[in-house]
């Protein structure tokens, strides 16, 4: 059995930031385990820019952002294993991992940080009828093929789903000479960042078809076209609106799901709204000593916020190892009220909160000129004005801890209110 103070599962931006922060806070024996052939996670295929404006104050590409953290990890002398897959973890933080060099390894950690990221939903998850020809890819897979392996996936493309990956891939395929016929989106609004709609679709005159879906894929060996249709308020196709679009490639950008098979094995409980572990102010799960951060907790659109959240997880894990985390205390629950989809963290112990309590959340709909109303046990404690809120853009609010000092609060709620 190998022994470490902290083991981090997943070497993406979340795992890297957590490991570095834990080291800076005085923990020495740290191991990062990554199943890929290199560190950096999904960032290595996200070659577009738009990363790091909050953390580094400059606009970086994904690989540049990753490299800064990888360099820092190496400078700090933190141990890592590549091409190593974690197979199982237990409630008492025993890990089994495998690689070709060492075979099966049993590792024990005083604290464990889960940062496995997420995976893409596939065609199976959304059920499009029709044949099963070649030329249907998830957008992330296509991104990896094009940007890392140098394999162009098609010439005439339709994209289903207007999340950021779909939008980024629309531009990427266009730049590489493909014609993107349309991006179809089931919802009446895009799930991606507004800036991506502007610079990936509008810049290249790619039509964004809101409230549309694909009802059939045509073609025997290779995709020959898709049938799209308008949908009604209940997201059901409206008969008579069907249109055939000729194409040889269909990219699916229909969402990401946090990768929590391992978390479940350790008895961590999952929030059905985020599909990630329920965590407290320290990014600790229900299981003592098991922390989580990044896309495994909730899907992030900005890596800067991943870094922020993961630093907190790393610092908390180091406090836990050093016996400085306050474990016993009244717990405040956060509650996503009217208009709010979810809030992370779901549980708060005020003793572990520094000056500011930060709440990450997503709204359910697009709103203009509204207020985010924060209540403690039903009483308004703070309001934030917002000009523009959208489900595709994560919102962070920062509350002064003093607002809650000396009060016996059991519930903090957030809601959206018309101004």
């Amino acid at each position, binding site marked *: 059995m190998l022994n470490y103070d902290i083991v981090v599962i997943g070497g993406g931006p979340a795992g890297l930031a957590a490991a570095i922060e834990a080291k800076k806070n005085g923990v020495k024996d740290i191991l990062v385990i990554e199943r890929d*052939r290199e560190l950096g996670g999904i960032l290595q295929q996200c070659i577009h820019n*738009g990363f790091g*404006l909050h953390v580094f104050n400059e606009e970086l590409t994904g690989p540049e952002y990753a490299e800064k953290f990888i360099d820092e990890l190496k400078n700090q002398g933190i141990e890592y294993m590549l091409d190593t897959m974690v197979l199982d973890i237990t409630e008492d933080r025993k890990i089994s991992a495998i690689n070709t060099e060492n075979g099966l390894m049993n590792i024990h950690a005083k604290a464990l940080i889960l940062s496995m990221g997420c995976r893409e939903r596939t065609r199976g998850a959304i059920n499009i009828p029709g044949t099963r020809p070649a030329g249907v890819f998830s957008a992330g897979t296509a991104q990896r093929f094009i940007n890392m*392996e*140098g394999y162009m996936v098609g010439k005439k493309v339709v994209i289903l789903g207007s999340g950021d990956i779909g939008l980024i891939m629309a531009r990427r395929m266009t*730049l590489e000479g493909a014609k993107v016929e349309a991006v179809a989106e089931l919802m009446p609004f895009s799930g991606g960042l*507004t*800036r991506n709609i502007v610079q990936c679709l509008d810049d290249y005159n790619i039509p964004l078809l809101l409230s549309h879906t694909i009802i059939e894929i045509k073609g025997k060996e290779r995709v020959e076209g898709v049938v799209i249709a308008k949908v009604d308020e209940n997201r059901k196709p409206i008969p008579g609106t069907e249109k055939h679009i000729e194409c040889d490639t269909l990219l699916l950008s229909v969402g990401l799901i946090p990768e929590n098979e391992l978390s479940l094995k350790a008895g961590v409980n999952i929030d059905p709204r985020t599909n990630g572990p329920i965590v407290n102010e320290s990014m600790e799960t229900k299981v003592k000593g098991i922390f989580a951060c990044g896309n495994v907790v909730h899907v992030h659109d900005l890596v800067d916020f991943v870094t922020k959240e993961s630093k907190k997880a790393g610092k908390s894990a180091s406090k836990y190892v050093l016996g400085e985390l306050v474990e016993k205390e009244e717990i405040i629950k956060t509650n996503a009220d009217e208009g709010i989809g979810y809030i992370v963290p779901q549980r708060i112990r005020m003793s572990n909160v520094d000056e500011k309590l930060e709440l990450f959340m997503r709204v359910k709909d697009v709103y203009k000129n509204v207020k985010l109303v924060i209540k403690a046990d039903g009483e308004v404690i703070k309001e934030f004005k917002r000009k523009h809120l959208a489900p595709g853009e994560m919102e962070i609010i920062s509350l002064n801890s003093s607002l809650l000092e000396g009060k016996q609060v059991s519930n903090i709620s957030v809601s959206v209110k018309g101004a």
Partner: protein
Amino acid sequence: MNKEVVCIVCPMGCHIKVKKDENLYLGYTVEGNKCKRGKEYGIKELTNPTRIITTTVKIKNSHLRRLPVKTNEPVAKDKIFECMKVINKVSIKAPIKVGDVVLENILDTGVDIVASRSM
């Protein structure tokens, strides 16, 4: 000339309004930007829109077949496809460091193509 644009300088994506105003030193009023970069962007988007290009080039002697690259400065929007043609002819050999220039002064724009990672 009035225009509503979405600022793409950072992911905040502020919705900004740009209005022509001859009386001002800059010649325009800008509203809705959360920071001064948005002001610059708004005016530029009306007068001379530019974009950073991010793409890849062929690389040999490496564990990957493509090296991510970017323009070190934004280039005029209407030159993007011309630039892509030039970039797609580049082929380089590892090792390379992040920030290294892989192609100088593309199409005489004064802009260089640089590596986005070490490989």
